């Protein structure tokens, strides 16, 4: 198996694009070996690199505009893929719904290595207990009385964020566009809207119970009560498990964006990619700048070394920024113009590691060797 030959310290970078998945490996995070496209001509909005068990498992949510969505699994870094005969994710007949796209694949807690969650379109949460080979609908959220009032945004009506609590199996936070943040404290049986303080600029009542267009939420396992959210206008932090949110947008050139990422080792260190909106939807000053806060959003620093600072117009989508879990973590950004930039030193210095790919929809990275 490829895993046994993988040199120590190898980082796997998975790049989901509009036309397939690209996989890259590196031992120094400067030179990368790419393979792909895997699942060609499928839009890959979701990929997970699951390193909890004794092998790195790549799980990909792919959708063909012709042939529909699917989930495929590789245990040999993309050398071979397994897709079950029966669809891994399918709505039960009584729901009258059909799967349009997988937006998020989130490994569960470390002590449940076969648990994987999937956030999908239309807005629903699925749970796998066999490592992603089959999933079951989480009925409590699907049958939520708010669901008829959740409305699709431009990207569709989807659950794009799934954050299981690191220690308490009964607790989880999800987010959707539009609809906002929902939490459960009873293992998914009941769910509560958790959007107090998050503004919905596009609604007559700008602070409704739910209906916000939350673009992404991130958290750090060492601080399970602290969350960071990039909203459709508005950047927020919650210090009380998602009950209330307050702005951390001061210091950013725009409060609009899609991505929000936490540092894997230092709680309170977060990354954001602001985008000017709504008139333009391009990076402010046409410059590629990742913003890092080292004090949980109290202040922000633009990271620019090695990133293009002129005539840069592509956006970075909600899952197109990520970190790896090396001792000194790397940070990765993919653009809608098919470029991937990587930093081997927490964002201080960057290099272009791929160009001319199809639109980058998501990136994920992890140490696999």
């Amino acid at each position, binding site marked *: 198996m490829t895993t046994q030959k993988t040199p120590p310290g190898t980082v796997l970078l998975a790049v989901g694009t509009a036309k397939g998945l690209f996989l890259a490996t590196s031992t120094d995070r400067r030179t990368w070996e790419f393979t792909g496209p895997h699942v060609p*001509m499928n839009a890959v909005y979701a990929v997970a690199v699951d390193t909890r068990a004794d092998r790195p498992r790549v799980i990909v949510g792919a959708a*063909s*505009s*012709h*042939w*529909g969505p699917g989930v495929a699994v590789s245990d040999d870094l993309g050398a071979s893929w397994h*897709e079950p*005969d*029966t*669809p891994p994710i*399918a*709505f039960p*007949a009584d729901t*009258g*719904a*059909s*799967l349009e796209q997988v937006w998020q694949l989130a490994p569960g807690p470390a002590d449940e290595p076969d648990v994987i969650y999937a956030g999908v379109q239309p807005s629903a949460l699925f749970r796998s207990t066999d490592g992603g080979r089959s999933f079951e609908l989480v009925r409590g959220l699907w049958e939520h009385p708010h669901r008829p009032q959740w409305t699709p945004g431009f990207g569709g009506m989807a659950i794009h964020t799934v954050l299981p609590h690191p220690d308490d199996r009964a607790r989880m936070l999800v987010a959707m566009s539009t609809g906002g943040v929902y939490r459960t404290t009873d293992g998914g049986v009941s769910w509560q809207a958790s959007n107090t303080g998050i503004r919905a600029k596009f609604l007559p009542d700008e602070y409704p119970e739910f209906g916000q267009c939350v673009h992404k939420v991130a958290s750090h396992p060492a601080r399970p009560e602290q969350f960071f959210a990039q909203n459709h206008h508005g950047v927020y932090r919650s210090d009380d498990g998602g009950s209330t949110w307050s702005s951390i947008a001061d210091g950013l050139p725009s409060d609009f964006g899609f991505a929000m990422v936490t540092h894997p080792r230092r709680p309170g260190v977060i990354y954001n990619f602001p985008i000017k909106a709504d008139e333009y939807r391009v990076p402010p000053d046409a410059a590629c700048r990742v913003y890092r806060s080292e004090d949980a959003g109290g202040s922000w620093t633009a990271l620019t070394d090695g990133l293009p600072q002129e005539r840069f117009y592509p956006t970075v989508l909600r899952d197109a920024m990520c970190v790896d879990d090396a001792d000194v973590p790397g940070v990765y950004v993919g653009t809608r113009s098919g470029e991937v930039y990587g930093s081997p030193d927490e964002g201080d210095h960057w290099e272009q590691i791929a160009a001319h790919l199809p639109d980058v929809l998501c990136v994920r990275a992890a140490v696999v060797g």
Partner: protein
Amino acid sequence: MPVTVRIPGVLRADAGGAAHLDLDLPPDVPLSSALDALAAAHPRLARRLRDERGTLRRYVNLYVNGEECRALAGLDTPLPADAEVQVLPSVAGG
């Protein structure tokens, strides 16, 4: 009654490599029955064509003896004996 389903190249891996599949169906069954028979033998192929509700995917065209099924009775289109069902992706994508 015999019915032949012609498989486009891109889907043949899900059909055991076959360019066409020969079905033996009861007389006077609709097109959906042919897809049900495909699902029993080649489930991954069948789900490329219909979603879990049984709805024909938007950019999949099924021609029954040369007529696209949506111009007939959709998946209720009756299949004559010796019908040829051709699976073709519609013009889409960029």
